[in-house]
């Protein structure tokens, strides 16, 4: 049974995550996206960006490992092996670029148990080194309750 006292809590801010060009290229290749501003620095600069731009769902590459560490922590009591991803929403405050140093705070927004499932809503607030908002991601994660 997950520990309900976590609802409303923020985990310690993690970072900095250094956004590197090769990580952006690797991620863009993995999602099959050959848009030039993900791969070619000159094309990104010509489009008005300081460096390579990250694809829209790139933030998962540094938020998901944070969520996994939290969900595998026995203190929270979540069954990670039976988890499915229910939904995902991303709000973009500004584009992520190569060279950014990003900090992520995981917030446990909600936890409900219904029809034999636990439903957890977790939010990641991502900011840059000047504390300017970069993106807000919200995930609904579902796991079967112990029968």
């Amino acid at each position, binding site marked *: 049974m997950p520990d309900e006292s976590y609802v409303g809590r923020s985990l310690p801010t993690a970072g900095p995550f250094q956004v590197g060009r090769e*990580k952006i290229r*690797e*991620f863009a*290749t*993995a*999602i*099959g*996206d050959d*848009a030039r*501003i*993900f791969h070619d620095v000159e094309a990104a600069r010509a*489009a008005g*960006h300081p460096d390579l*731009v990250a*694809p*829209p*769902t790139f933030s*998962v*590459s*540094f938020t*998901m*490992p944070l969520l*996994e560490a939290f969900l595998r922590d026995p203190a929270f009591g979540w069954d990670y*092996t*039976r*988890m*499915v*991803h*229910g*939904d*995902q*929403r*991303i*709000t*973009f405050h500004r*584009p992520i670029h190569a060279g950014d140093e990003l900090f992520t705070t995981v917030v446990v927004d909600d936890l409900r148990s219904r029809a034999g499932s636990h439903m957890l809503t977790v939010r990641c607030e991502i900011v840059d080194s000047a504390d300017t908002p970069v993106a807000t991601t919200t995930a609904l994660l579902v796991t079967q309750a112990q029968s």
Partner: protein
Amino acid sequence: MSDIAKGDELPALQVHLTRADLVRYAGASGDFNPIHWSERIATGAGLPGVIAHGMLTMATAGRLVTNWIGDPTAIRTFGVRFTRPVLVPDDDEGALVDITGVVGEVTESDGARIARVDITAKFDGKTVLGRASAEVRLPS
């Protein structure tokens, strides 16, 4: 792009997702959950077989939008529900995912024109994403 209106259809996208794509995505995204690469663990978890990462399906749906608008940074919000798994067989062809989109609404906000794109993703003839939509800032 200035004449974008409600009802406009986006150029459709067909993507084959193979086991190799899942492994590549696992490495790039840091999501090494074994249900996305091990038949043994996937079936042990009650799934019919290895399934694609939901976030890979979401990223593929995102390509439909960014290809259309031409500027990936024009996306303001992007959300999906994962309603069915995409089963990826251990063969050369993989799973065929069909992605289509339509402009559901165009609104004005703070002097900017915003299009809401409603996205449909189908695998094996059935939708795999629910309430999938992106809000996109249109060029003025």
